[in-house]
């Protein structure tokens, strides 16, 4: 199974990482380094995708959060 995460700002992709097994059942993790902020704050979106092409099974979830200088 492949689990990855992509970081977006205004729908522009900023970064993509592979998430690794976190040592707890069904949990995967990783780290993003946040970009600089030009305004009072920016809203970023992260999209996590899971895929297993052999079965095939796919899934995704996303969330947004605020970034300040």
């Amino acid at each position, binding site marked *: 199974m492949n689990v990855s995460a992509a970081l977006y700002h205004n729908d522009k992709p900023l970064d993509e990482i592979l998430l690794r097994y976190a040592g707890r059942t069904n949990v995967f993790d990783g780290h993003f380094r*946040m970009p600089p902020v030009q305004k009072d704050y920016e809203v970023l979106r992260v999209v996590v995708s899971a895929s297993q092409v052999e079965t095939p099974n796919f899934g995704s979830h996303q*969330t947004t959060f605020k*970034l300040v200088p």
Partner: protein
Amino acid sequence: MERFMKDPSPTEFTVRVISCDAKVIGSLVGGCRVIIRHRVTQEVLAEGFHRGGSGETGSIMKQPRQRGATVFATEGAAAYTACLYLTEPTPVEIIAEGPLAYPQALQRASTTTWLIPGKNALGEGFILQLHGFIVEIMTPASVEVFGAGAPVHLEASVRLL
């Protein structure tokens, strides 16, 4: 044949919704919505919820399957059972949507079949399979605020439906 036209016959059937490469989609993930629709008129003949347990791991995930063997219809396993009063053979579409507790993972599957008055389809019943993972971002939460340049720890859970 005359009986078909005059006396409605109770016709019971079971629908089971399973996860591709996993078990029965049960109440733990919110179960599924099941709709029985007349294939020609599109009238909804029955609808309800598929709830219960996820079935027996042994029979679903471990043991080799033989034709006619009970795999999913074990004690407490999730199912939706309906009874229609039919006067004639009826073409239906069976639609299942779930898991209802995870909108981001919601999938839908359907099949078509005939229902024949008085001919029950219980036990394993009609089996619909949904593909997918329940992906859930645990951190960061959507209300969190981060400083520029800082590393952000991302954690997600991934499991079969």
